[in-house]
């Protein structure tokens, strides 16, 4: 039985402390936004979860390339784990965005470029799980996942560009139109501190959860091997 690494326990502790600090910052340090009030505070964790989502999807594409080049099982494990984690974080980002949108835009959902892209991205990575489930042979599963993860990540910016063009009135200028729409605001100093601190916190949290997930996968593999060995 593999011991839990010391550093992982340490990272657990750091994540918890950082998270608590981030919550404190959000509620007591960051000032109240003038027009939106308290609901704007969801912004700090909303952007952070979305960031972790994209980070994980990027990691999975990178791991896809690594797997194809080296054929080491560990890259597949990391890739799969990060998609799994990011899928959930991205879902949290969509839901927290909805919570923010309800009072500010007066609707839970609008077909704005970012929201639509987010929905498409969730569907793409939902399909990733279905693909993995449908393939039994482990090496084939790893190869297919790697290929699909690369395709998926490349398609995300294209999806964003085309949907953004679709939703703006003058599609000639890609930068045109305010994507935040009615909810725009400019950050003051304490807000920026809170914002970047949240981003950092969630990045650390991502690494921590990813490590746990990879360890879980390894233990599961080990258990399956032991079970097979005991049967023979």
């Amino acid at each position: 039985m593999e011991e839990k690494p010391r550093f992982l326990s340490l990272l657990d502790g750091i994540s918890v402390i950082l998270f608590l600090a981030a919550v404190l910052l959000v509620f007591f340090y960051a000032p109240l936004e003038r027009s939106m009030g308290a609901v704007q505070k969801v912004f700090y964790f909303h952007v952070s979860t979305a960031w972790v989502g994209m980070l994980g999807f990027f990691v999975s594409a990178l791991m896809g390339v690594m797997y194809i080049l080296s054929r080491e099982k560990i890259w597949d494990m990391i890739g799969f784990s990060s998609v799994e984690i990011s899928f959930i974080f991205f879902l949290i980002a969509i839901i927290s965005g909805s919570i923010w949108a309800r009072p500010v835009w007066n609707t839970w959902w609008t077909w704005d470029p970012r929201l639509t892209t987010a929905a498409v991205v969730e569907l793409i990575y939902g399909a990733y799980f279905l693909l993995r489930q449908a393939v039994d042979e482990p090496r084939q599963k790893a190869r297919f996942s790697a290929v699909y993860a690369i395709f998926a990540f490349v398609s995300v910016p294209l999806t964003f560009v085309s949907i953004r063009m679709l939703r703006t009135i003058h599609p000639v200028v890609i930068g045109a139109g305010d994507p935040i729409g009615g909810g725009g605001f400019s950050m003051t100093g304490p807000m920026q501190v809170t914002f970047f601190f949240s981003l950092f916190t969630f990045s650390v949290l991502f690494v921590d959860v990813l490590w746990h997930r990879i360890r879980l996968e390894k233990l599961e593999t080990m258990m399956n091997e032991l079970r097979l060995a005991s049967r023979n």
Partner: protein
Amino acid sequence: MRNYLRTVITVVWKDIVGEARNKEILTSMLVFSLLVILIFNFALDLDVQAQESVTAGVLWVTFTFAGTLGVNRSMASEREGGCLDGLLLVPVDRSALYVGKALGNLLFLLVVEVIVLPIYSVLFNVNMLVPGFLLVVLLGSIGYIAVGTLLAAMSVQARTRDILLPILLFPLAIPILIPAVKASIGYLEGYPGPWIMTWLNVIIVYDLIFTAIAVILFEYVVEDWS
């Protein structure tokens, strides 16, 4: 290079000859397309006024569905017939096999489009003979088939074969479907050129990027082909 081209042509030719014998793919794609249009006719109440705004959408949905059917069938028959097994033993670049399969699939889809477009044109009294529009149909089909062929090569090896392909393909195809629909509307309704060009550019970028990736990654999809 000559060898590569010969392989591509051989694979395409094999698909054409196979199709000429059993006419499986083309007939099912064609009948399916007409059925989809028929259903849209009732579902959307496609009279002359309504169809102006939805023509491009209806056509692209039809081509998308028919295309899925085609690439899926063409890969499934490789698996059943064991032809790709043999081809993989031949010492040629695997990407040549991909290019051959993709070109074959593209050809079938284009044939279906060439038949469906005039029929649609007659049924709903729309002029489809706009060169720009035909170009959009061609470019859009290229990107869609490029991704579809690769994903079909994966999905036919999976357990949930037939239902897996659309689930994998549709979300990845969104960035080509949006500009394809928009550019088609632009040409059919006579929108200004620069407006259409921006959409056309997105299609071309998609075609280039995804074809390149698919060509590179195909060999990892078919190793251990089962």
